[in-house]
């Protein structure tokens, strides 16, 4: 008999535990790279997520089908690793029963996490993952229906950068150096190479290294020997300063072009004066005059004391897209939210005008080219598809 009471007590406690995540709260999961190689990315993502959710909750919550709900965030660390990103997604979906997941940011984590979101039928929006495989199943070539991104893709970015290199920088001969362990950077370099060659340019050399390497002098010496007019450097912000510095030490004077992987304000501190004058593609410009950007930048600065970077802006837009879709849903169910995201057109985010098309998780939006000038990221051009 006592055993029966015991079981009943445990059952009661369990039920109590279940009902505690009550019907007026909606849980949203965030997977961010809080530790590991790119902790600045994770920190920006977490900051913007907390800011977006706080804004909704202080306004009295979100209205879904005539009922107000408060949002609760569950933040998990992916440590920038594929396996940890996957287990974080699993944990958020099965244990916390989140209604949607924002993140991971790096494609290396976003691809495995997207598999879990797709099979569990929970919508996932990656703010920063630019690799096609995040939204497309590489085995079947079909679009995943529950996975979205807030940014444009590598293929688009790589071709825009190649066009920019040839058009604006007048460089016909280019060399590239990238981290071969990063799928996203490899993708950018490959598309850049293909587009440049299609347009009649030449790639003088493709050099690679593996993550954690800090000595690039051998590769840079090879690049210098081939005498290119430009170096395309799709590498993470933590590697860029060393590569640029070593290039300069070897007397390489040609312009260096980067991709969105440069887009962290830590780059300015790490680079010092070495990166002055170089261009890179970005998702967001803090000194853009587009509506809503100034308020976002001011609010972010007031809370965290720094200017929001790409990841912060894209995370903020990911939440914007999610909230917009939730408002248009009849009930707070993953299925309804997914359908509503697919129908979003002309969403005015801080990273530009975002439109989704039925049957695709990739938005239509423009590429921003920034220049590093006087120790700041300055807006240079907006390139529309």
């Amino acid at each position, binding site marked *: 008999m006592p055993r029966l009471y015991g079981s009943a007590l445990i059952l009661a406690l369990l039920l109590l535990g279940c009902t505690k995540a009550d019907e007026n709260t909606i849980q949203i999961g965030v997977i961010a790279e809080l530790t590991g190689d790119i902790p600045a990315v994770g920190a920006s993502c977490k900051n913007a997520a907390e800011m977006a959710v706080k804004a909704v909750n202080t306004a009295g919550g979100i209205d879904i089908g005539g009922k107000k709900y408060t949002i609760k965030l569950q933040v998990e660390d992916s440590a920038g690793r594929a396996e940890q990103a996957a287990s974080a997604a699993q944990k958020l979906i099965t244990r916390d029963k989140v209604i949607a997941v924002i993140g991971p940011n790096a494609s290396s984590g976003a691809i495995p996490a997207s598999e879990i979101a797709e099979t569990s039928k929970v919508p996932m929006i990656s703010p920063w993952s630019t690799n096609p495989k995040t939204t497309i199943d590489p085995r079947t070539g079909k679009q995943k229906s529950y996975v979205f991104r807030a940014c444009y893709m590598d293929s688009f970015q790589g071709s825009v950068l190649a066009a920019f290199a040839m058009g604006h920088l007048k460089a016909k001969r280019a060399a590239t150096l990238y981290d071969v362990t990063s799928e996203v950077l490899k993708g950018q370099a490959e598309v850049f190479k293909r587009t440049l060659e299609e347009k009649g340019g030449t790639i003088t050399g493709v050099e690679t290294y*593996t993550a*954690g390497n*800090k*000595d690039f*002098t051998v590769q840079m010496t090879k690049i210098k020997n081939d005498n290119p007019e430009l170096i395309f450097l799709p590498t993470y912000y*933590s590697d860029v300063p*060393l590569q640029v510095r070593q290039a300069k030490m070897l007397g390489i004077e040609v312009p260096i072009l980067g991709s969105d992987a440069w887009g962290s304000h830590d780059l300015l501190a790490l680079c010092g004066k070495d990166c002055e004058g170089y261009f890179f593609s970005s998702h967001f410009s803090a000194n853009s005059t587009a509506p809503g950007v100034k308020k976002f930048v001011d609010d972010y600065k007031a809370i965290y004391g720094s200017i929001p970077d790409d990841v912060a802006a894209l995370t903020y837009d990911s939440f914007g897209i999610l909230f917009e879709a939730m408002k248009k849903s009849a009930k707070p169910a993953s299925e309804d939210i997914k359908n509503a995201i697919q129908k979003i057109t002309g969403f005015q985010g801080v990273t530009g005008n975002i439109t989704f098309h039925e049957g695709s998780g990739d938005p239509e939006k423009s590429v921003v080219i920034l220049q590093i000038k006087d120790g700041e990221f300055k807006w240079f051009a907006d390139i529309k598809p």
Partner: protein
Amino acid sequence: MAYISQQLLNMLQLGSIYAVIALGYTMVYGVLSLINFAHGDIFMVGAFLCFIAAGKLHMPFVPVILVAVAGTALLGVGVERFAYRPLRDAPKVSAIITALGVGVFIENFTLALSPYPRHVPEILPVVNWNFSGLTVSSIQVLIVALSIGLMVVLDFIVRKTSYGMAMRALSWDIKTLPLMGVPVNTIVALTFAIGAGFGGAAGTMYAMAFPVIDPYMGIMIGWKAFIAAVVGGIGNIRGAMLGGYILGAVETLATVALPSTYRDFVAFTLLLILLVFRPNGILGVPKTIKV
């Protein structure tokens, strides 16, 4: 011609750093037959001490390197006293697992304090000299000169001083040595202090040449320096120096001759082949166990 000499210079710089770190592995192995897997992380601590001394306290070059060397030497002695000494009579496997654990501890301790990559400011003004296409920077000259200087001093200590004689005797027979009146614990501590101090010096030089540092920076370079020590003949000091330069040369040549993706693959394949023919390394002597 300029291209070849430029790559030779790169080779020399990389090899010098590997050689100085490899010395830390080989010295500890020499006296205790223990592979100190935490050595790569001690190197990382050296780089962080350099960052604190130069970036936060704005010290000039000489105090910076003294702080880094003294700090890591103390860390090395502390690790030996609290992690390895209690296990000196335990099976070798336990000591190796402990060494791995100490490494993970140091990494995560640094990670908890500062997970972000840090920029080390210029400690000495960098000057580039140009000799008809060959660019030589003052940092490269400093690294190569300082490494060779350190190795000459160490070679002198080990071969000519009474402490050096005690170290060599210790590697020969740790059981009998106390009977001769040699303070074993002091000599072991001194060995760790020198080995770790070399790691700290290498960390400082590395942070000057490649001024973005992070808590994981010691892992890969630690492994490579360990391999350099094995190639040269672990336990042999001149072997560690030779191994460092060989590894630096093989890595550079592999990158020059082949796509850079194959670098580590080719370098390590060659080293494995070398070990098949010389299992004790180039200068190593097989240990015979007398029954």
